[in-house]
């Protein structure tokens, strides 16, 4: 069934929190869980909620992401009506300075004006969750709110999350800064629902005032003026904000696999890789393995992306090995993140620690 929501994935507000993996790509394109990129999770979630008109607003280093998304076919978004739109910043020669995510929305405001949907959901790409956007919209309408923001409770402190405070009836009173009060338990999930007309009006007003930040100008500065409602998301979520949280959430996948995680429905780009080959002598334990790998050595507690090779007597432990990386005979990789197409030569040793996993840059030969 159709849902009256226009999807917006806002990447222009996302900072490169961990430069090692985002030197060549934006955060949305960071590979995750063996065969996905971070953006797959939000995009799939929108599609699963029957949102059929989605704009991805990007800022920089978006080549990899564009290649990944293509026409949106894998997400069923190659449509004559709506579908997937990718909006790189609309820069002009005389004003080529990026001022904030709102300017990106403003420059592409025709996307909002032309779409038939009456409501907009804006989300980032680095919080992986299964927010039911239909339910958010329902609660948004029922509470007669002007703006609804999605929050979640977390037992673990989240250094990079924004704490959120409420008054009566879940009316939002404040949204803090990242890392401001790590003892807080309720966090903003960088997801907001509001009517399209209000959204466009607030963007126009903010731009007229010379303001360019979505969170500051559209939410925080309106808290006293408009009714900003909080919607509680009760499911699980993974927040990927730093190299450490990326590594930790990846390792958590292995601990919980089969119990909580179900990525069966997550769409991603098809690569036509053959199944993975396990050769004589291979020993694999507690690992997530994508297709197209050729495994001869020992791999434990690790995530192997598509087309990885682990040679004879090589040992991979507590590591994340990205697409088409090769660990040659007898090499050892422990507590490490190998970006795409890294080669670890025969007998070489790469060893990090749980707290400080070593990151090897894309296409490096060690």
């Amino acid at each position, binding site marked *: 069934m159709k849902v009256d929501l226009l999807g917006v994935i806002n990447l222009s507000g996302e900072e490169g929190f961990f430069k090692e993996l985002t030197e060549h790509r934006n955060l949305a394109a960071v590979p995750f869980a063996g065969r996905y990129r971070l953006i797959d999770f939000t995009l799939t979630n929108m599609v699963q909620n029957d949102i059929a008109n989605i704009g991805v607003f990007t800022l920089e280093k978006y080549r990899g992401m564009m290649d990944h998304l293509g026409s949106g076919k894998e997400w069923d978004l190659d449509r004559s009506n709506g579908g997937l739109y990718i909006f790189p910043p609309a820069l002009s020669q005389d004003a080529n300075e990026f001022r904030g995510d709102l300017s990106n929305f403003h420059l592409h405001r025709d996307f909002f004006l032309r779409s038939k949907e009456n409501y907009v959901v804006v989300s980032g790409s680095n919080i992986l969750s299964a927010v039911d956007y239909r339910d958010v919209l329902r609660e948004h309408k029922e509470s007669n709110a002007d703006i609804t923001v999605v929050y979640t409770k977390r037992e673990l402190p989240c250094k990079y999350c924004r704490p959120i405070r409420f008054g009566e009836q879940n009316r939002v009173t404040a949204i803090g800064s990242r890392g401001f009060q790590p003892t807080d338990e309720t966090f903003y999930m960088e997801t907001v629902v509001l009517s399209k007309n209000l959204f466009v009006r607030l963007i126009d007003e903010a731009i007229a005032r010379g303001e360019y930040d979505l969170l500051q100008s559209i939410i925080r500065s309106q808290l006293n003026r408009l009714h900003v409602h909080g919607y509680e998301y009760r499911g699980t979520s993974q927040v990927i904000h730093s190299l450490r949280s990326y590594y930790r959430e990846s390792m958590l996948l292995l601990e919980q696999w089969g119990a909580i995680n179900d*990525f069966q429905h997550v769409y991603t780009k098809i690569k*036509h890789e053959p*199944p993975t*080959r*396990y050769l004589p*002598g291979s020993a*694999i334990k507690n690992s997530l393995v*994508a297709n197209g790998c050729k495994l001869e050595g020992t791999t434990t507690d690790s*995530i192997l992306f598509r087309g990885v090779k682990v040679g004879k007597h090589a040992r991979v432990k507590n590591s994340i090995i990205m697409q088409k990386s090769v660990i040659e005979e007898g090499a050892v990789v422990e507590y490490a993140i190998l970006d795409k197409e890294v080669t670890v030569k025969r007998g070489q040793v790469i060893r990090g620690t749980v707290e400080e996993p070593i990151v090897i840059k894309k296409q490096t030969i060690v």
Partner: protein
Amino acid sequence: MAKKNVVAMLLAGGEGKRLGALTKHTAKPAVAFGGKYRIIDFPLSNCTNSGIDTVGVLTQYEPLELNRYLGIGSAWDLDRRNGGLTILPPYQAQNGKNWYEGTANAIYRNMSYINQFDPDYVLVLSGDHIYKMDYEKMIEEHRLGGADVTISVREVPWEEAPRFGILNTDDDLRINEFEEKPENPKSNLASMGIYVFNWDVLKRHLIQDAGDAESSFDFGKNIIPNMLFENLNIRAYKFKGYWKDVGTIQSLWEANMDLLTAEPEFDLYDPSWKVYSVNPNQQPQYIGNAATVESSIINEGCHIEGEINHSVLFHGVEVAEGSLVKDSVIFPNVKIGRDVTIHRAILADGVIVEDGATIGSPDGEVFVIEAESLVKKNEVIKEAIQ
């Protein structure tokens, strides 16, 4: 429609009786192979990799699964504005004709499909072999040799030649005789059922054959012998490389096992000749703490806690702790419980094996567990179920 140099016609209507339970509700070309593929992926990928973008797929027997799998041909890059993949089922005509009555009849009934593209050559393929072949090279040789027909052949061991359709040629590879399963073969060149025809020549012969009340409307039995009788220039094209007829349970199992050798002759991993298939969109495979996996190929979406040795696992297979899967082929979405032992078996789609069951024996005959069936707790199955 714009003119095409080549139109491929893929015969995919066969029942595949010798595959037993595997083709009970599925056409043979849709039978699973190699952990991820269906048999038809190989000729279709060959077409794509050979630059042939116009493929008619002739269906007849149990077409539902095959049709669903083929879709509009997107998986093989055959969703094209001009040409692309077209499913050609039998249809009712004014003369009362209904089902396809033979391989040649199936093509004859679809002459208007081919005519739209006004091709120079028609490539006739079948959907029951595992191989990689650059059809473009065969067509090029056909063209250079000024042939009317070219038939792809491979050399088989002399002692096996009586099992095949054998083509006798002169030194120049011009075919002068076709013998079906000859007792005393004069050559060891076996036909692979892959033909290149000049379209005008084939068209004339199809029309002629259709008017012959005695004919069984078959390429091997009628069309080729008639062409030989007419003394047309029919040439053999020697193919070298892996080629396997997977028409029986034993040969299908063997072809799967062939993929598990240290350096398989049939390389699925060659980036210059990718084999395309419909992607079931599965999560990565998870190999658990208690698992042992060796000498096997495993597809996405599997969850393995037991021991997998020398086996092929398709997507979505679950194997619980304490179980052993050896020398077997496990089709998609099979669930295997704890302490199960499986030897030399093909478990078709969606089979459920409960705890403690035993299937097959280490040196027994290879057999099939039918799709969607249930193997009960502690049940022992050592004989083939017919």
